[in-house]
C-alpha cells in the first residue's frame, strides 16, 4: 500500500463556542516527516485546532484525516491509539507518580493482553515489563537527560524539568505524530536551546512528524519546514519560513515591525 504523502490533512474545519467562532474553515496539510508550525496571536485558534485533532473538542464541521483515515469522530483515546501524541501548554502529568511511572503508562496503547492475562502469564508480563523499562531508559530518559531523576515524584520537580517530562510522557506511547503546544514557553535561553535540541534529535531518530505551536519566533523560523499563520480562527498565510517572514499581512498582524527590523539588523551584521 502506498503511504500517504500527507500525514495529517484537515479540510474545512470549523469550531464554535456558543456564538464565538473559534475556527473558521481551516484547511491544512502536514507532510510526513516534516516540522510543521502553527503561529499567530493569542486567541487565534491554534490550541483549539490541535484540541480538535486530539478530539478534546468536537468540530462543528470539516474533516480530519490521519494516515488516509478519517478520524473526525474518533474518541480522544482512539486518536492516541492511532499514533498521535501531544504535550500541553500547562503541563499535564500524573503529578503524584514518579517520572518512570508516568512514562510506563504510555504502554497502554500497545497493550495486547488484558489485565487478567497479564496476571495469568506472570513470566511474560515480567519480561514485557523489563523490555519496557529498557526502552524507556534507553530511548526516552537517556535521550532527554532525565535518567538521574527517574524515580522522583513529578510534583517535586521544577517547571523546566516538568516541561521536559511532559515531552517524555508524550513520547512514551511511541507516537509517529507529535503535537507540541508551546514546548519552550516560560523557559530561559539555555533551557530553550536544550529543549529544541532534544526535539530535533528525537524527531530525526524516530522519524516523527511534528506539529508545533510556539510564540518564540526565532525558534519557529529556525526549525520549521512549513508554517501556517492563524488569526481570529482563520488561516491567513502559509509557506516556508522565509516566505512567511516576508509576508506583509503576517508582519502587520503578528510579527510586528520591530521583529522585522531586528531580523534585518542581524542579516546586516552577518
Amino acid at each position, binding site marked *: 500500500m502506498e503511504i500517504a504523502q500527507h500525514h495529517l490533512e484537515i479540510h474545512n474545519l470549523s469550531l464554535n463556542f456558543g456564538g464565538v467562532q473559534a475556527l473558521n474553515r481551516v484547511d491544512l496539510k502536514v507532510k510526513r516527516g516534516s516540522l510543521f508550525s502553527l503561529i499567530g496571536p493569542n486567541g487565534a485558534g491554534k490550541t483549539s485546532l490541535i484540541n480538535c485533532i486530539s478530539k*478534546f473538542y468536537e468540530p462543528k464541521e470539516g474533516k480530519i484525516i490521519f494516515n488516509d483515515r478519517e478520524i473526525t469522530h474518533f474518541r480522544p483515546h482512539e486518536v492516541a491509539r492511532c499514533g498521535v501524541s501531544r504535550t500541553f501548554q500547562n503541563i499535564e502529568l500524573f503529578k503524584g*507518580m514518579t517520572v518512570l511511572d508516568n512514562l510506563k*503508562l504510555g504502554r497502554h496503547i500497545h497493550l495486547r493482553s488484558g489485565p487478567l492475562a*497479564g496476571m495469568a502469564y506472570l513470566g511474560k508480563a515480567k519480561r514485557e515489563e523489563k523490555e519496557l523499562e529498557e526502552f524507556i531508559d534507553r530511548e526516552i530518559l537517556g535521550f532527554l537527560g532525565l535518567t538521574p531523576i527517574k524515580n522522583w515524584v513529578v510534583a517535586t520537580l521544577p517547571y523546566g524539568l516538568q516541561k521536559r517530562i511532559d515531552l517524555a510522557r508524550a513520547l512514551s506511547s511511541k507516537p509517529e505524530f507529535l503535537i507540541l503546544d508551546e514546548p519552550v514557553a516560560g523557559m530561559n535561553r539555555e533551557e530553550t536551546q536544550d529543549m529544541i535540541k532534544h526535539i530535533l534529535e528525537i524527531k530525526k531518530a524516530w522519524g516523527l512528524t511534528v506539529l508545533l505551536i510556539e510564540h518564540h519566533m526565532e525558534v519557529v523560523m529556525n526549525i520549521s519546514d512549513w508554517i501556517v499563520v492563524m488569526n481570529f480562527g482563520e488561516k491567513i498565510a502559509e509557506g516556508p519560513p522565509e516566505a512567511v517572514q516576508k509576508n506583509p499581512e503576517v508582519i502587520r498582524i503578528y510579527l510586528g515591525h520591530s521583529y522585522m527590523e531586528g531580523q534585518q539588523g542581524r542579516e546586516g551584521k552577518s
Partner: protein
Amino acid sequence: MNLLVQVLIAGITIGSIYSLIAIGFVLIFKSSGVINFAQGSLVMVGAFITYAFVTQFKVPILLSILITFLISGAIGMIIERFVLRYLTGVSLISIIMVTMGISFIMDGGALATWGSSNFTFPSLFPPLSLLLGGIKISSIYLWSFITSILLLVVFLLFFKYSKMGLAMRAAADNQKAAVTLGISPRKVLSLTWAISAVVATAGGILLASISALHVNLSYIGLIVFPVVILGGLDSIAGAVVGGFIVGVLEAVSGVYIAPLLGGAFQQVAAFAFLLIILLIKPYGLFGTKEIERL
C-alpha cells in the same frame, strides 16, 4: 486486660472490613468526584444475594460468593453506565441526590424481596481458633480479619503494579494526560464502579457472617463517612487507616463508654471523634490540602 484485648481484636476485625468498604467509596470519589451514598446499599444487597444463592438456590457457598461478585460488579457497571454517565458536569449535590435515590431503590427492593427479619448467614469458613496469650480468638473474627487483610493487600498490589491499576490511578490523577496515552476514561470508570461494588459485597458478606443479615446492613454506608473523612476523601491509605480507627473506636466505646453514658454510644463515637479530628486537621488525616483560589 483480657476484656480489653478481646475488644481490640473485635475492633480491628470490624475495622478491617470498614477499610475494605471505604476503599470502594474512595475509588469512586478519586476517579470521578462522585460521593456515592449507595455504597452501604451495595454492601447489604451483595450480602443478600450471596444468602439467596446459598439458602434459596442451594448453591455451594464459594460458588455463591463468586456469582455474587460477578452480579454486584455488573450492578456497579450498570449504575455507572446508565445513570452517572449522563450526569457529567451536573452539580455535586444533584449527583449525591441521585446516588441516594439509587440507595433507596436498592434498600426498598431488598426489603420487598427479603423482608425485615434477621437472617443467620451461612458459615463461610471451617472452624479455626487461635489461642493468643491465653485469650481465645473466635473463628469468625480470625477468618474475617485474614480475608479482609488479604483483599486489602491484593488491592494494594493491583494499584501499585498492574497495568490496569496504574491506568486507573493515572486517569484519576490527570484525565487529559491519561487520554493522550490511549487510556479510555469510560472503561476506567466502569471498572472502578465494578471494583467498588465487589469490595462492598465482600465487606457485606463478612459483616453479615459476623453479626447477622438484615436490611439495615445498608446503614453501614453512614459509618463509611467518618472512615473516609478521617482518612481524607481521596486517600486509599487513609481509608485503610480510618477504617481501623473507627472499628477500634466503636468497639472500645461500646464496652467502656456506653455503659457510663447509657444508650448505644458506640454508634456515635466515630462521629464524635471525627468532629475533633476535623477541628484539628480539616482535610482529614491523609487528605490532599485543597486551596481554592478566587
